[in-house]
């Protein structure tokens, strides 16, 4: 089973079309291996993106350098996945 240790999910809030364009550019950078849970659409809607540990620094620097606001929704995805797995196992044992 693939692990997601250190992967974070960021919630990104854009203020204008220009910032949205920057996020769409980010989407095209395959080497970052970003997984958009909510895609960039309009400034009114947030963008949620799962970022592998190896890309975290680059993405955060990119966002900060363009003045794009973000917050961390999920600090470490694997922690939540482990909890989910434990719940399933516990339920099966019951």
């Amino acid at each position, binding site marked *: *089973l693939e692990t997601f240790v250190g992967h974070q999910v960021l919630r990104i809030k854009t203020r204008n079309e220009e910032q949205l364009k920057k996020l769409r550019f980010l989407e095209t950078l395959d080497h970052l291996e970003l997984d958009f849970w909510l895609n960039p659409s309009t400034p009114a809607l947030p963008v*949620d993106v799962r970022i592998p540990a190896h890309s975290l620094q680059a993405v955060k620097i990119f966002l900060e350098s363009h003045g794009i606001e973000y917050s961390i929704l999920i600090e470490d995805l694997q922690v939540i996945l482990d909890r989910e797995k434990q719940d399933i196992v516990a339920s099966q044992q019951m």
Partner: protein
Amino acid sequence: ERSSSTFNYGTYHSLASIYQELDNLASEYGNIVSKIQIGESYEKRPLYVLKFSTGRGNRPAIWLDAGIHSREWVTQASAMWIAKKIASDYGNDPSITSLLNNLDIFLLPVANPDGYEFTHTTNRMWRKTRSKNSGSLCIGVDPNRNWDAGFGGPGASSNPCSDSYHGPRANSEVEVKSVVDFIKNHGNIQAFLTLHSYSQLLMYPYGYKCTPPADNAELNTIGKAAANSIRSLYGTTYTVGSICSTIYQASGGSIDWSYDYGIKYSFAFELRDTGRYGFLLPAAQIIPTAEETWLGLKTIMEYVRDNPY
């Protein structure tokens, strides 16, 4: 010996366990529930639909599917709870009894079984089908960009490595084609409802274009009534609108196809939550999510029952 009374609806299950439960429901509620195979997935897993029916012949019917995006686990889990709810409440709940005395319901709880199995065995974050793409090492097509409605337009990717890859042609995915064939062969589907997560949205066509559908006012009214029903249980708020107005342009989606095919009451639900857990909604929220979703679905189903076209 197993029965649906021992199935834990408040946890996430493997595909095998879900398929076993479909048999249990069909056996336990044989008077109204039957299991139909409508096709096979790319990796040859059966596509099972539960038919809820009290009558003979081709009655007007409602289509409901879940899990076309495999990582949206709360949708498959909610569909199973809803199946049990419909089966066990027939004859006890006047609303469900009246629904099934007038309409059939077809429920496809796992629309993308290959993807679902893959999320359990290999990659919890998998969204697409598991078909091979000619000329690419990347696997899978986004099955909700693969319908014949504005296929290949805005909001879908032509890159096989993208999570929103639309596929080589409309209906290229056997999981999509099987549903299309079933709906066409049935010939009397009055509503097409599909469950996704997450964001708490209730959407109607269109996604492939931003012009409102001919029935915009009616669909909006029904959607708002359903959202009110959802909110009435636990206060969960839903945003209602067309796909284009609530999220973004997305072409090749299932409800755009069903609406253009002539199924007026076409809706897509995006279930809980709004992002705290996203696709990893804790199992403790499965039953509350299913309960409130059912209220929204029931509101739409009652409208469909009372407003044939």
